[in-house]
């Protein structure tokens, strides 16, 4: 039995509608000789042999177990208690998604509910959704929320240059063709006052990062006041681990708080899967994309969990939906919930303090080296910028090849003014010896 519902007549009608005669005409753009390439695959091998080969391949990658890592820029090498992985891999939990018949999976719903509750506590916000794919997506959804809040009557987004460059790109991609202009991030050094200068009656949202991409901890109270005075919303993108130590952004009046959840018990994994944190105020809950798990009681008065807002986009709003994202990052949200539960309030604070102190120890050491200068002014968290005496790529090559150190992020990639500037991150995983070795290696390469 064929499960393809189209009849030949359906196909002909579709082809006619787009103005081609045969299905093959659709592939005209692909040169004929590459349409069915000879794959030239090797002979099949046994499981034992292929495991050996794959193992060797994976060992060709360098990893943070064997190399000291000072690379951050949005993804951080943190300690993950083993219990996180053990709980994630339980069969009852091991699915990447919110279930599609959700109420039968009470355990999964409860886990998401716990995640939402923990994230609300951490950010100080009233509502958290069940998560998005990553921090960049969450920021883009925040912009969509603001545009809808203003019913399309405001089309400007004021974006801090110190929001992660990838997130800024995702916002621009997301809002393509919507008539939205994104301003404010033209120069790396535009601060809160420069952003406030862009505010007008066409501004839907101001987006900032906390701590920012360069590590700075900025108080956005004044910017929040100016934003609200202009009738716009303030979105703060956070590093959730830093909130173990810092005043939550709800304290300065953020309307939406988003963030990359990777620091909360999710391994670097060469870039993903990560976790998009999305929280807001109660008044915007109906504008929030994604799912929301709620607690209620069943017909017998027992505690039960439901997908309170799940059906909105897919089942109810359909073409009126303001976002096409309905799913969440279930497994990674669970990882964050387990991590936060294991760490507790004091544990998270301790981890954040360690990051702060290690980064400041590193900055003091590196700042004292001839040729290097700390670029940051004011308080920073676990990341700082160093002006280097040589091209960053050259320094990183030396660190990697001669010292088994993964160096910092080359800011010249994203900021023309910051050529020769390296963004260095430190976490609780970096020992004092590693930091001392980094400093002496940097000193050495400056003299080469």
């Amino acid at each position, binding site marked *: 039995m064929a499960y393809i519902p189209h009849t030949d007549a359906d196909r002909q009608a579709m082809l006619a509608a787009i103005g081609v005669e045969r299905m093959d005409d659709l592939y005209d753009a692909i040169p004929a000789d590459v349409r069915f390439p000879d794959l030239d695959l090797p002979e099949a091998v046994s499981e034992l042999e292929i495991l050996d080969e794959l193992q060797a391949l994976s060992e060709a990658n360098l990893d943070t177990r064997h190399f000291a890592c000072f690379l951050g820029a949005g993804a951080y090498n943190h300690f993950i208690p083993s219990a996180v992985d053990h709980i994630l891999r339980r069969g009852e939990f091991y699915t990447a998604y919110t279930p599609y018949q959700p109420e039968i999976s009470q355990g999964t719903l409860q886990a998401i509910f716990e995640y939402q509750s923990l994230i609300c506590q951490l950010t100080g916000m009233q509502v958290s959704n069940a998560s998005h794919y990553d921090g960049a997506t969450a920021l883009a959804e925040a912009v969509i929320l603001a545009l809808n809040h203003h*019913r399309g009557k405001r089309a400007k987004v004021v974006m801090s240059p110190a929001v992660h460059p990838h997130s800024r790109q995702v916002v621009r991609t997301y809002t393509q063709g919507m008539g939205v202009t994104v301003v404010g991030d033209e120069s790396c050094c535009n601060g809160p006052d420069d952003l406030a200068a862009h505010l007008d009656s066409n501004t839907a949202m101001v987006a900032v990062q906390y701590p920012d991409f360069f590590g700075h901890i900025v108080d956005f109270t004044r910017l929040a006041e100016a934003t609200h005075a202009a009738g716009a919303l303030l979105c703060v993108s956070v590093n959730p681990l830093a909130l173990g130590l810092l005043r939550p952004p709800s304290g300065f009046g953020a309307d939406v708080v988003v963030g990359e959840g990777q620091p909360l018990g999710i391994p670097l994994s060469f870039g993903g899967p990560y976790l998009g944190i999305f929280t807001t105020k109660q008044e915007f809950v*109906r504008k929030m994309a994604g799912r929301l798990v709620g607690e209620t009681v069943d017909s017998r008065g027992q505690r039960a969990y439901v997908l309170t807002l799940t*059906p*909105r986009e897919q089942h*109810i*709003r*359909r073409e*009126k939906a303001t976002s096409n994202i309905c799913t969440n990052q279930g497994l990674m949200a669970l990882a964050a919930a387990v991590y936060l539960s294991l760490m507790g309030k004091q544990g998270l604070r301790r981890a954040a303090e360690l990051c702060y102190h290690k980064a400041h120890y590193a900055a003091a050491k590196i700042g004292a080296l001839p040729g290097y200068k700390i670029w940051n002014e004011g308080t920073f968290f676990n990341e700082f910028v160093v002006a280097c005496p040589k091209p960053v790529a050259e320094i990183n090559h030396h660190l990697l090849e001669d010292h088994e150190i993964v160096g910092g992020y080359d800011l010249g990639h994203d900021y023309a003014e910051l050529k020769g500037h390296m963004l260095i991150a430190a976490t609780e995983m970096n020992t004092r010896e590693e930091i001392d070795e980094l400093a002496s290696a940097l000193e050495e390469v400056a003299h080469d």
Partner: protein
Amino acid sequence: MKVSPDLKYTQNDEWIRVEGSTGTAGITDYAQEQLSDIVFVEVLASVGETIAKGAAFANVESVKAAAEVYMPVSGTITAVNNALPQGPEAINKDPYGEAWMVRFTITAPAELEGLMSSAAYQKHCEGRSH
């Protein structure tokens, strides 16, 4: 379904009460029956705004569907029922009374001619297949 003889109706299931140059609008009993339990209302219109006939002035969402509510005739908004978002179930209970949505000054009275009487609207609803 209930209709009220003192109101006029649109094809899209809005009602309007005309008192002099003032119009009051909401959605009909038939509409609330079709939508079933209404869980969310958002009035998009704000006082002072002039909205053309046929333009959306509110969103209504039930457990089954989301619908936009359109102006039956053009008007300048003079009042918005701010109690509705806190108690959207009023639309299910009392669509022609408590659940009024907006009040406005009718700017193009001639447009009233195109609306249906309660008898015509009742016939219109009966003729719809589901």
